[in-house]
């Protein structure tokens, strides 16, 4: 058995303190994390299934409608959730939230003076199917300014929260879009080790694109493998 497959791979994840992203300096733990031996890792955890999701949860172009269609470019985002052996993880809950097409969040704390869209809420969730595939519809989020440094703008992104089979596979991440010029200036994206950055960028996919309706983007998510997955007991 590969005993390292469980580890959080710190050559793939951003460090806890990344000075370019200022608030990490005061909020990221400074002491080393305590490594837990393989056999002591919690291997069970709650599983969320389809019952966690309401019918319109996967369609952000509809779940916030008050009196019309939301503004902006409709997109469909789909991908697979896999473990590190490339095996699909079914019944995996994904929660997403994002800014509207103008770069404004519904969140009360967002003071960016871009318009709110009365017909766009910006949050949803979906669950992967038997093949580990998820799919949701939304509006392409806009870029927005933030206070980290002068003239700081976040690239277009969708926030993802993912549950895997156990507490070790928990992941919160952000999906970006190909060719975004702001990526080169974003300390949150750039805090990720260089070799792993492109894993956060979705790819445009004409085969996902729905004619006359929405542009398709593909985004696969790889969670840590675990020895309790059926495959490894074979």
């Amino acid at each position, binding site marked *: 058995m590969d005993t390292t*497959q469980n*580890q*959080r*791979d710190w050559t*793939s*994840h*951003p*460090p*806890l303190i990344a000075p370019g*992203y*200022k*608030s*990490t300096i*005061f*909020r*990221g*733990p*400074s*002491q080393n*994390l*305590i*490594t*837990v031996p393989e056999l*002591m*890792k*919690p291997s*069970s*955890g*709650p*599983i969320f299934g389809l019952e*966690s999701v*309401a019918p319109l949860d996967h369609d952000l172009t509809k779940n916030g409608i008050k009196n019309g269609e939301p503004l902006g470019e409709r997109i469909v985002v789909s991908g697979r959730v896999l473990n*590190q*052996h490339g095996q699909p993880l079914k019944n995996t*809950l994904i929660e*997403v*939230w994002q800014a509207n097409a103008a770069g404004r*969040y*519904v*969140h009360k*704390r*967002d003071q960016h003076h871009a318009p709110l869209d009365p017909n766009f*809420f*910006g*949050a949803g969730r979906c669950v992967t199917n038997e093949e580990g595939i998820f799919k949701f519809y939304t509006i392409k989020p806009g870029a927005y300014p933030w206070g980290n440094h002068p003239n700081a703008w976040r690239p277009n992104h969708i*926030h993802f*929260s993912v549950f895997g089979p156990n*507490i070790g596979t*928990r992941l*919160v*991440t*952000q999906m970006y879009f190909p060719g975004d010029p702001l990526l080169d200036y974003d300390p*949150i994206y750039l805090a990720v*080790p260089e070799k*792993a950055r492109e*894993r*956060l960028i979705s790819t445009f996919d004409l085969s996902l694109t729905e004619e006359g309706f929405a542009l398709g983007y593909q985004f*696969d998510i*790889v*969670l840590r493998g675990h020895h309790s997955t059926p495959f490894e007991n074979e």
Partner: protein
Amino acid sequence: MNKLGQTPSQTVGPYFAYGLTPEQYKFDHKSLATPVLLDANKNTQDLIILRGKVYDLHGEAVDDAMIEIWQVDQKGEFQTKPHQGFFSIGRMGTGTLEGNWFEFTTCIPAAEKSGQAPAIHMIVFMRGLLSHVYTRVYFEDFKELNQEDPYLKLVAEERRNTLIAKKVQESPVAIYEFNLHMQGEKETVFFDY
């Protein structure tokens, strides 16, 4: 076999509330997990309140952290369907209670394995934290079990107290306090699972 690379973590950012803890922040969207794990009306298990704050390097209580707790019930089982009024995952943001508290209604779990002390898993997410961190909440009532707990034994003795919730009220309901210090002299111990 070449393994696929892990998808990197990114911060939850300051605007998680309407996506992840909408009911708490009064958004019109259903919450999947709330600060209430144990429903006192449907439950015979012993209810406790677990509360705390998240302090940054300057000793300021963070108002945009999201705390997730995972725990088994008093019988040692994970419950993810409403079952006898207990749900195994709780979530709360620190932005709605005055003083920036998180506050969960739950029970003290059974020990997950023999030889372990009862503990609640806690995951910390916040703006300014690029990768979430894990800690474990122990209870001061279990002095002997805590002494033998294999996770606590991994921790230098002088830092173990950062993982022990203090009982600050006995009745009518037991209240335990567990404060997180992200940095500084009292920095909380975080584990890498």
